[in-house]
């Protein structure tokens, strides 16, 4: 990565793509209450995405606003981590993704809140409270499913195993960034270790660590997500309610 623009764009894209994926649960969640919780979390992510992408556009200085960045880039221009673009899978996979993302975003936004860049500090200060709630929500489901029935344990362990390799990309070192993601790893490992232990789940091991999202090399899933997210704006540029 290269400078505050790429860094900010990457965080904004994480939040935007996570919001779009979570919104797919709307009207489909296992319970009405959970439906609203996931929509709330999606809206929190969207709010953070708007602030980050707006600021990224200003840092770039090429006249692109949040809409231009969200709706008029192709998949190779997106800088989100692969974790957030993975399909939702079953509810356990969604909770594993949410839990890992929040366990990364909470220390990230907390660190940003104290960084030298005032805009990023303000965004971090706002978003970290939301992330604390996302982490709480994800963790309580990981615990309940992991330490629930035989079937829920099987599914939760399988979800954790499936998603885990994608978490490594979040912590790729970038010493020049306002917050070096590598410094967030200990807090993440602490959170994940204690929640998985309480959930009677096994922390996966193994060397496989897919990456590429931060340089625009994505899984095939992202372009389908973008197609749905961008179709209206591309068909009717500047459309308003």
């Amino acid at each position: 990565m290269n400078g505050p623009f790429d860094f900010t764009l990457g965080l904004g894209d994480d939040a935007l793509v996570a919001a779009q994926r979570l919104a797919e649960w709307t009207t489909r969640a296992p319970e009405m209450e959970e439906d609203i919780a996931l929509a709330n979390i999606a809206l929190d992510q969207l709010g953070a995405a708007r602030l980050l992408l707006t600021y990224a556009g200003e840092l770039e200085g090429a006249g692109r606003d949040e809409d231009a960045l969200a709706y008029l880039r192709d998949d190779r221009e997106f800088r989100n981590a692969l974790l957030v673009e993975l399909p939702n899978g079953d509810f356990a996979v969604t909770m594993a993704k949410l839990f890992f993302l929040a366990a990364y975003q909470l220390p990230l936004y907390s660190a940003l809140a104290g960084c030298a860049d005032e805009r990023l500090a303000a965004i971090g200060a706002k978003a970290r409270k939301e992330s604390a709630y996302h982490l709480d929500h994800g963790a309580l489901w990981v615990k309940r499913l992991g330490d629930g029935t035989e079937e829920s344990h099987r599914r939760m362990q399988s979800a954790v195993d499936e998603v885990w390799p994608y978490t490594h990309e979040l912590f790729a070192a970038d010493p020049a960034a306002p917050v070096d993601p590598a410094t967030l790893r200990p807090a993440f490992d602490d959170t994940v270790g204690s929640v998985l232990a309480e959930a009677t789940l096994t922390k996966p091991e193994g060397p496989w660590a897919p990456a590429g999202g931060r340089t625009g090399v994505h899984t095939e899933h992202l372009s389908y997500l973008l197609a749905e997210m961008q179709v209206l704006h591309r068909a009717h540029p500047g459309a308003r309610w």
Partner: protein
Amino acid sequence: MSEPTSREQTPLWEVFVRARRGLSHTHVGSLHAPDAELALRNARDLYTRRQEGVSIWVVPAGAITASSPDEKDAFFDPAADKVYRHPTFYEVPDGVAHL
């Protein structure tokens, strides 16, 4: 599928929200949740997303003992003709603006 639906598995909770400091918790509605912690989280999402409150209680609906509509007459009507229970039979002294 013979498994019960999630709706049948999850008990009902009554939700009480305190709008701000100094006010009482007020009943705002009910929701389903498998346990108290989730009930509290769900209540936060369902009932305080527009800054309606500063504190939430959740109570298992089964733990509430309610008066029955059949008992309405016996419960409430006897109070109807006892106007002397209202504090309206004495003069309010001057200068007591906020009694």
